């Protein structure tokens, strides 16, 4: 084959350009630590990375949701514990009041204590969390329990998205815990006890005992439900955290360059480039006219 000057120059130029471009790619991979710097570097991996990144964003949003709502649910649970303790106190007072040896004035003083419990109960039922009244259903901006026990809330659930197939309700139902919707009207029962004690009505006092028990177990049930919600939040968080790990691992596998390989490649190409430059110099020096 006849080799001419232009062939020599253009082959030197194109070989150097090819090597430089490969060296630049290797340098980029080594520098960024990423194997997929552009979708075209590996279209399938790029598509997968886009999906993984969406999934990762969703998982971290859901974990954020769990930690955001967990506080309120815990507060609801401990409030219900408090309510349940108040009911226990009320029952003790009722038992005391039922004692035949007590006089009217002593019962009246017990009635005062029950009144206090009632007021405390209203306070507990009106507990406010980070997003409003905890036991108001959806009416979180309005105080749900008036002093006379009127309930202005509702039994709507506060649902959030934590990745379960059905939306997860994270609020404790005030309606079910405190009002007739759950079986007994708790504040009403306390009222009844107060009235019976105040009017020195022994039969009436004894009659409240069963109702007070039912009211208390109604609150305890609601407390247990709140506990279950917290357990569920924790369980979901554990699942999400492992999904997050798995996603991170897949992202790494799909998109990251192995540092050792990347560095080896780079070193190799650096050397090739250097050699190629010196070989090119020799080739370009080769010309008959220089010998004349």
């Amino acid at each position: 084959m006849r080799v001419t000057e232009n062939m020599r120059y253009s082959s030197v130029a194109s070989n150097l350009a090819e090597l430089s471009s490969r060296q630049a790619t290797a340098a980029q991979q080594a520098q960024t630590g990423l194997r997929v710097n552009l979708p075209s570097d590996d279209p399938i991996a790029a598509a997968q990375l886009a999906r993984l990144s969406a999934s990762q964003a969703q998982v971290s949003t859901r974990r954020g949701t769990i930690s955001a709502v967990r506080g309120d649910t815990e507060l609801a649970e401990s409030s219900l514990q408090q309510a349940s303790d108040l009911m226990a106190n009320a029952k003790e007072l009722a038992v005391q009041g039922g004692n035949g040896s007590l006089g009217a004035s002593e019962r009246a003083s017990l009635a005062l204590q029950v009144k206090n419990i009632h007021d405390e109960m209203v306070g507990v039922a009106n507990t406010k969390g980070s997003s409003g009244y905890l036991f108001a259903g959806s009416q979180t901006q309005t105080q749900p329990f008036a002093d006379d026990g009127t309930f202005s809330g509702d039994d709507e659930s506060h649902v959030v998205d934590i990745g379960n197939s059905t939306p997860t309700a994270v609020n404790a139902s005030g309606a079910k815990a405190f009002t007739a919707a759950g079986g007994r009207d708790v504040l009403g029962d306390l009222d009844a006890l107060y009235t019976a004690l105040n009017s020195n009505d022994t039969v009436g006092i004894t009659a409240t005992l069963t109702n007070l028990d039912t009211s208390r177990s109604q609150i305890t049930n609601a407390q247990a439900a709140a506990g279950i919600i917290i357990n569920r939040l924790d369980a979901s968080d554990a699942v999400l955290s492992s999904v997050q790990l798995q996603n991170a691992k897949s992202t790494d596998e799909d998109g990251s360059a192995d540092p050792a390989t990347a560095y080896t490649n780079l070193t190799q190409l650096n050397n090739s480039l250097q050699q190629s430059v010196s070989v090119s110099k020799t080739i370009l020096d080769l010309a008959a006219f220089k010998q004349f």
Partner: protein
Amino acid sequence: MAGLTSLLNVARDALTAQSYGLAVTGSNISNASTPGYVRRVALLQTQALGTQTGGSVVASGLQRVTDDFVERREYAATGLSSAATTRDQTTASVESLFNDSAGTGLGTSLSNLFSSFSGLANNPTDGTTRTNVLAAADAFTQSVNATGTALDQAKQDLTTQAQQTIDQINQRAQEIAKLDMQIAQATMQGNDAADLKDQRTQKLLNISGLINTTTFTDGNGDQVVQVAGTTIVDGTHAGKLSLDLNGDGSLKLNAVQSGGGTTEITQYLTGGTLGGIKEARDTDLFDVSKKLDQFVFDTATAINTQHAAGVGADGGTGRNLFDVGSTADGAARNIKVSADVFNQPDRIAAAANVFSVPGGSDNAVAMAKLADVFTNTGSTRTAAEAYGDLVGSVGTTRANSQRDVETQGAILQQVQSMHQSESGVSLDEEMVALTKYQNAYQAASKVLNVADTLLGDLMTDVGR
């Protein structure tokens, strides 16, 4: 038999012929790196003197060492290579619009949008979460608008570029026709016209980079140049191309007929910058715009439907979150936050019914959960999956066009190398030729010297 006087003539002819050889060699050396220069060889032959042996030499002209077949292959390879390069420029810029690893994609704003729905569900009565939804919706429309507009701009730029390319093709065609005329005139006057022919080849290479080009010689010996299957130069006559747009906005390439009418030749356009523009604009860009529009339309429509089903903090319902139109066409460019809710956070529909206002979050959760629902691509993919598919297809297109650039570039290089091997100047060869002609010239001088001496001797002796 010739005498001493004719030996003088022989020496004179030899000096002329060898210096012609030197001149040709010099021209080769000086043009060793001139683009399009085809090496010349001086043609020397013996001077016939009737039936006698003259012994004299004459330079009968020069030969351009070229091969039509290789030249045609170079035109074809140039066309395909420049088509691939042009296309790759567009696919590269499209790819950069969807490069989530560099933070330019839509993935983040899509995730943020769904995340804002979750935030709304966590605390529907907090005004901030509502404002966040509006902000995320706005950011989503902004980034989608930017991408859609960039794609549209790329399309318009390619239209301009196509028009400029066609102007260049028409210009080159005229130049080639003019060169053909000059070559014909020069040839008639007995000149070799080698430089003009070099220029013509160069122009042909140029035009073949703009559009797929073939050449042949017709029955009359005229050089015919065809682009996209249409004769644009026939002998000394140049034709014209013109550009038009089809109803669907795609490019339409026409050959202008001598009567002024046009014939569409778009389907024969396969190479050159214009071929690359056509493919990048009407296939690649069209495809990605369509997919982006569909992605935006599907996602926004699903969110709209869910949002309209819910109830805002003001008790109102049936409002869309996005204004996206009724078809996917142009959705990416035109989508915006609906005027129903714009700047009115209270109207974000977190609750599922009017009774659960303001604390109800069922609808907010339903919107957040749309991220897991097959809302896109004919209800077969989630929004994030559909976006991933879009990124994948953009990447595949770019990877293909890159591969094309490499393949066509390698083919072109090979053909160029064949061409250079045939027609290029080798300085080594020229050095040998230079020495050859130099020695021959010196020898011819010696012949002249000998003839002169002999004639001188003769005259001196006779005159004594």
